[in-house]
């Protein structure tokens, strides 16, 4: 059995640590790329959402390196993601490249079935080892999130342009050659040190933009055309509340442990969206409101075409925009999105925000 799994932002780092620690043989698909998307397009239903198409590309490229089993998360709706595993299994079968799927979810058959699936994955490993590896992987999720957050801070402020990107990208590819959670943690710490030591302009007051939207397209930098690096290099400091760590914390750990959930966003979304409707609609609306209340200059919503919950959120955002006085830009991505058009809109939005800030002179992007 040679396991593979789909990419979603930096998730591969923690999954790699987990599989390394458990001694499972695996293939990490090449980073999301154009060919993966093309492969996905060829085989996936036309109207399926972008993440599914990229997933299929990931599997097919991993298959080329000998993977035969897919490790995937599941769910029970109402978001389409919960049925990804079944649709993907069917698509690969029809394409004559059938792969085995191990779906991590609590299925209808109960928790026993989940344990059976985990057992299948971790042949031979004892429970203690599994728990320890899972805990280490979770720790790495949070560490990587922190690292990313640090890059949001340094990128617009760096004196030597492109410095943050260089360090951060080197880390993303270097981590592939490091084995085991211990060494990965060390590398993260080392990279953290490098980022902290970047020379920054302490007086610079960057624009602040909050990123909201569907989880995959906001987290995965291929799907969003590297929006984090693009905005950062335009002198914009960004923030994103939805991260893998946040998801793990709020939806898994806090369900298992008696810790109260952080529901500030739900409270903030209440006047606009009364109930949880699935996906990240509530987070999108609530976080946009929270950004509006704080000193943020703008909000950008990103989602894949035809994403159901985000369409609802999008139609509510104009009211948030009006009530909180914060401009919102919605970017919708799919396989047809052209980078040039996307960039133009992004630049125009940043321009608008700068002008809105008014006469207050700020450093970057000004030409005096």
């Amino acid at each position, binding site marked *: 059995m040679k396991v593979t799994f789909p990419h979603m932002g930096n998730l591969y780092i923690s999954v790699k640590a987990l599989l390394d620690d458990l001694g499972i043989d695996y293939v990490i698909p090449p980073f999301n790329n154009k060919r993966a998307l093309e492969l996905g397009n060829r085989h996936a239903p036309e109207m399926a959402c972008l993440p599914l198409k990229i997933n299929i590309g990931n599997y097919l490229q991993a298959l080329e390196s000998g993977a035969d089993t897919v490790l995937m998360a599941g769910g029970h709706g109402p978001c389409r993601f919960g049925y990804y595993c079944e649709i993907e299994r069917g698509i690969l079968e029809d394409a004559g490249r059938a792969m085995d799927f191990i779906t991590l979810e609590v299925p209808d058959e109960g928790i026993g079935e989940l344990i059976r699936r985990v057992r299948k994955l971790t042949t031979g490993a004892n429970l203690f080892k599994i728990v320890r590896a899972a805990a280490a992987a979770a720790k790495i999720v949070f560490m990587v999130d922190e690292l990313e957050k640090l890059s949001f801070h340094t990128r617009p402020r760096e004196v030597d342009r492109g410095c943050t990107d260089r360090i951060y990208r080197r880390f993303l590819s270097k981590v592939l050659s490091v084995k085991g959670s211990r060494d990965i943690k060390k590398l993260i710490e080392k990279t953290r040190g490098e980022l902290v030591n970047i020379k920054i302009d302490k007086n610079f007051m960057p624009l602040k933009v909050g990123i909201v939207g569907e989880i995959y397209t906001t987290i995965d930098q291929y799907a969003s055309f590297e929006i984090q690096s693009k905005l950062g290099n335009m002198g914009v400091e960004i923030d994103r509340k939805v991260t893998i760590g946040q998801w793990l914390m709020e939806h898994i750990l806090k369900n298992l442990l008696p810790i109260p959930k952080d529901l500030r966003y739900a409270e903030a979304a209440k006047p606009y969206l009364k109930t949880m409707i699935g996906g990240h609609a509530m987070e999108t609306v609530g976080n946009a409101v929270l950004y509006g209340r704080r000193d943020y200059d703008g909000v950008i919503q990103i989602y894949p075409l035809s994403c159901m919950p985000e*369409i609802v959120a999008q139609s509510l955002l104009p009211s948030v925009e009006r009530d909180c006085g914060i401009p919102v830009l919605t970017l919708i991505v799919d396989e047809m999105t052209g980078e040039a058009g996307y960039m133009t809109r992004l630049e125009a939005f940043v321009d608008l925000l700068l002008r809105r800030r008014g006469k207050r002179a700020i450093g970057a992007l000004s030409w005096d």
Partner: protein
Amino acid sequence: MAKKVGIPRGLFFYRFFPLWKAFFEELGAEIAVSDRTTKKILDDGVRSCVNEACLPVKLYHGHVINLKDKADFLFIPRFMSISAGEYICPKFGGLPDMVRNTVKGLPEIIDVEINLVKSRRNAYKAAMEAGMRFCGSRKAVEKAFGLALESYRHYRNAVKKGVLPCDIRIERRGYCNDYTYDTSSCIFRSSGLNIAVIGHAYNLYDSYANMNLLGKLKKAGANIATIDAIDGRIMAEKACALPKRMFWDFGSRAAGGALHMLEEKQIDGVIYVMSFGCGVDSFVCDIVKRLVKRHGDIPFIVLTIDEHSGEAGIDTRLEAFIDIIGRARKAD
């Protein structure tokens, strides 16, 4: 004067109107339904709703605009789930919020939540909450709810006999248990082609949205079978054959219904009607297509509708499809 409850002719209107009508009328309210879909309703909807929404949601906005000045209340329930353990499209759950934030000058909205995933008694609770606005006694609301269910069952029975919901004159005043219908539209007569038309009720029975698809099929002499004509229990049972349980109401009905029809072996062709950008359809269509392929490779066609669909294009495809299955049948 009786209070007027406005019910937009869109989305679940096509499934639950008889129930709602009987309920509100029993409570002494008057019912106002928006006009049948017209170009103006479509244009109003397209203009007010977000671009990315699907055709049925846009049409719904158009119907709200058509109705908002004619009623004291608008009945836009927040549907999260209409069957145990199954959801529907998240847009239904956010529908009252969407309408409220896009259409101006609305009357009071009755946006009770119906969520059968939470509890089976949730529908009753929602009825109570909505009904108490019209009459003070819980008993009266309970009675109205009972009658409404009764009326709905009669309606379902007519549909199960093979009558197309669009042929039933459901708007007649007063709740009635004798839904009049035109028996000529019953399915599976011995002659003619049997065509299964699978799609959301609001796509199939809004003849403006689908450019009179069902009328055209009837005119071509085809017998139309829809999943609405199949007993819910049969569909639920058949849907168990799927490797992973479907968590959408429409998904399990469409897959279960398609399997049932395929196993009966009376179907000559399958037409899947999907609205552009529909998240649920994008997956369910794929599943149904696979089921059809596995069961003897019956001709299968997907018709996608949106606000731009050209009638000529649909006609051509439909004619070609009917030609093909006619020929396939002769060859047998």
